[in-house]
C-alpha cells in the first residue's frame, strides 16, 4: 500500500509496475487518473491550485484505503494526490487497485475515489479570466459517497 501527497507529477506505468513486481496473483488492475479540465462551470480554467492539511491528509487517505481493503479482496493499492499549482490537462490524482478479480478492483477503486472526494482534506482554487475562486463541494460527490454506506 502506498499513499503519497506530493507536488511532483506521477507516472502511472511506474506505479503499476511496482505493484505487479514479484507477484503473479494479480488478475485485475483498475486505475483512475484525474486530470485538470480546461473548462469548469462554463468558465475557462487557466490554473488550479490545490491546498491540503499536511498530516491529516495522509491519515484520511490511509483510513479510506484500509476501509476499501476490509470490504473487497484488495491485493495492493496506491493513492497519489498532487498539491500546489497545476495547469489544464495535468494529472491531479491517481488511485490504482490490484485484485485477483475485476469486480473487486473496480469497486474498491471507485470507493476510494468517492471517499477521497468527500473525506480527504484537499481544497481547490481555480484561476479564470474573472479571477480566483475556491470551489464548492458538489452534491453529486456526497451522493456518490453515500451509496457505499452499509445498512
Amino acid at each position, binding site marked *: 500500500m502506498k499513499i503519497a501527497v506530493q507536488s511532483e507529477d506521477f507516472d502511472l506505468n511506474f506505479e503499476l509496475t511496482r505493484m505487479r513486481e514479484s507477484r503473479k496473483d494479480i488478475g485485475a488492475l483498475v486505475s483512475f487518473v*484525474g486530470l485538470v479540465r480546461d473548462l469548469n462551470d462554463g468558465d475557462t480554467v487557466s490554473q488550479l491550485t*490545490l*491546498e*491540503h*492539511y499536511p*498530516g*491529516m491528509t495522509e*491519515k*484520511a487517505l490511509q483510513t479510506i484505503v484500509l476501509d476499501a481493503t476490509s470490504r473487497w479482496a484488495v491485493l495492493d493499492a496506491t493513492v497519489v*494526490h498532487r498539491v500546489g499549482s497545476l495547469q489544464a490537462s495535468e494529472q*491531479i*490524482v491517481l488511485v490504482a487497485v490490484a485484485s485477483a478479480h475485476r469486480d473487486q478492483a473496480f469497486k474498491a477503486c471507485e470507493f476510494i*475515489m468517492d471517499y*477521497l*472526494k*468527500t*473525506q*480527504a*482534506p*484537499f*481544497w*481547490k*482554487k481555480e484561476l479564470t479570466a474573472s479571477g480566483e475562486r*475556491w*470551489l*464548492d*463541494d*458538489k452534491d453529486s*460527490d456526497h451522493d456518490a459517497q453515500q451509496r457505499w454506506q452499509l445498512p
Partner: protein
Amino acid sequence: MKIKIFDFARLKETWKFSSEDLELPDAELSLLKLKGLLAKRSEVWQKMLLGSLKVRGAINHELVDDQALIVDGDEVAFFPPVTGG
C-alpha cells in the same frame, strides 16, 4: 488548557493566519462552543464560522462533529467542505 488551531482554504485567506496557539480557562470544550467563542472576535470570524459555509472541524486529524470535545494539547482545525480529487 492550551490548544493549537489550524485553518485552511477560504478561512485561511479571510482570517489571514494559518495557525494559532490558544489558551482557554476551560478543561474541556465542545467544538461548537469553541466556534461560538471565536465567532465573537469579529464579524469576519462570525460570518465564516456560523454563516453559510458549513465549516467542518477536525480534532487531532480526525473529522468530527460539533459535539466533539476538545481537551488540553489538542490540534483543532477549521476548513470548508473538501474538494480534492
